[in-house]
């Protein structure tokens, strides 16, 4: 079994890994913001509902959530099983939105009241205050915690194998049963390492870009 062949096979598994990663990221970044608005809502029932939801999502293992999304609808309502990747994506997006929403909330609440007031007395609308004044300051503040969470996401994608989605770990593991080879499994770690390295450089670059001022 050649090194090159294993590399190519693992790379095809990494494609799925990357797909889960990028789709989760793109969907949960905006969804997290909506959850944030819910958990900061002045209307108490919505706030309680959203915070309970965040508690449940953060309080149970992602692995369990994936299993629940995949098998739950069939067991409860006798529905046809959905595509495995869809189930994984739903679980991941919901889970990561909940985590992102808390990071956003921390960022938004750290912007001083004076910034809102200054915007208000200058006649800016609430929407203008948020998008022209607050949001940018929030982004700058949440880059470090977000990069942490996003790097965790890269490795969490391996949980998808619990419902047999062919991401890189699953592909690598197959070499054990099929060819009695264990090194491809360890080799798969290099793929994560390189990808997280690239992300780290990207976040470093973003932080640097936003470093032109401090408040």
């Amino acid at each position, binding site marked *: 079994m050649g090194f090159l062949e294993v590399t190519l096979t693992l790379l095809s598994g990494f494609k799925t890994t990357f797909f889960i990663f990028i789709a989760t990221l793109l969907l949960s970044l905006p969804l997290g913001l909506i959850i944030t608005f819910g958990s900061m809502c002045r209307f108490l029932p919505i706030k309680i509902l959203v915070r309970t939801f965040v508690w449940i999502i953060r309080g149970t293992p992602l692995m369990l959530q994936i299993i629940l999304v995949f098998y739950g609808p069939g067991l409860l309502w006798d529905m046809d099983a959905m595509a495995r990747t869809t189930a994984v994506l739903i679980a991941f997006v919901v889970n990561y939105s909940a985590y992102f929403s808390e990071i956003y909330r921390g960022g938004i609440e750290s912007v*001083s009241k004076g*910034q809102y007031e200054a915007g208000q*007395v200058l006649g800016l609308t609430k929407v203008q205050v948020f998008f*022209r*004044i607050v949001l940018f300051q929030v982004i700058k503040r949440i880059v470090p915690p977000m990069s942490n969470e996003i790097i965790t996401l890269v490795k969490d994608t391996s949980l998808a194998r619990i419902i047999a989605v062919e991401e890189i770990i699953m592909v690598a593991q197959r070499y054990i049963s099929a060819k009695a080879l264990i090194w491809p499994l360890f080799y798969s770690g290099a793929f994560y390492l390189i990808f997280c390295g690239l992300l780290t450089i990207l976040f470093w670059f973003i932080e640097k870009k936003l470093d032109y*001022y401090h408040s």
Partner: protein
Amino acid sequence: MAILEVKNIHKNFGKTKVLKGVSFSMEKSEVVAILGSSGSGKTTLLRCINFLETADKGQILVEGKPIFDASDKRKKSASEIRDMQLNFGMVFQSFNLFPQYSALENVMLAPKLLAKERADFRQNKKQIYKEIEQTCIQLLDRVGLSQKLSNYPCELSGGQQQRVSIARALALNPKVLFFDEPTSALDPELTGEILKVIRDLARKQMTMIIVTHEIEFARNVADRIIFMDGGVVVEEGAPQYVIDNPQNERTRAFLSKLSER
């Protein structure tokens, strides 16, 4: 006609009564300084007039037109409050500049956003923005910061930041400009440059209300002093009366405490 008239303003925070019926009025081009110890309600009064707090009782009129009436229970839309807000400008104790924008961008932000609502904005966008930029550069020049247009707030001294925030408030051409202890967050050697700017504005007939602890400055620049204590106006009048010859016991106590410092 009075440019600003405040009638019987009350404000409670929970059970604490902060304002217990404050009334005053001022004429165009007048400069009023509000004095009083901490907790006397000066800042809350300014915040109520500027819609940062909602008064529980009372009325506010601008040029005879009521812009606020606490007994009017109809909920005002955000845009109505905004239109009323634009009558006033406010300079905060802690500057509250937007850190991600340069000095010039801080001053231009609000006028640019406001210009978008003009009917001719689409056709004349470039021209309008250019005019706004010119005006804002002039304003920063007027407060002595023509060399700092592209500097970010974190690159400016406290005094320079406060001058930017004065220019920012002036950019919307307010009818009345409010200062909430504009020098309290500054080192003593920097307060002078702010007071100089305010004095210059007074000379140019700007209508202003200044909450301050700088008695000497109030005496020099204000046409009238309002002394507040315990949420009411205790004494008001020309500086030579209120500061030099106070009639009220509480005014006297406050001034003598200040002179002991």
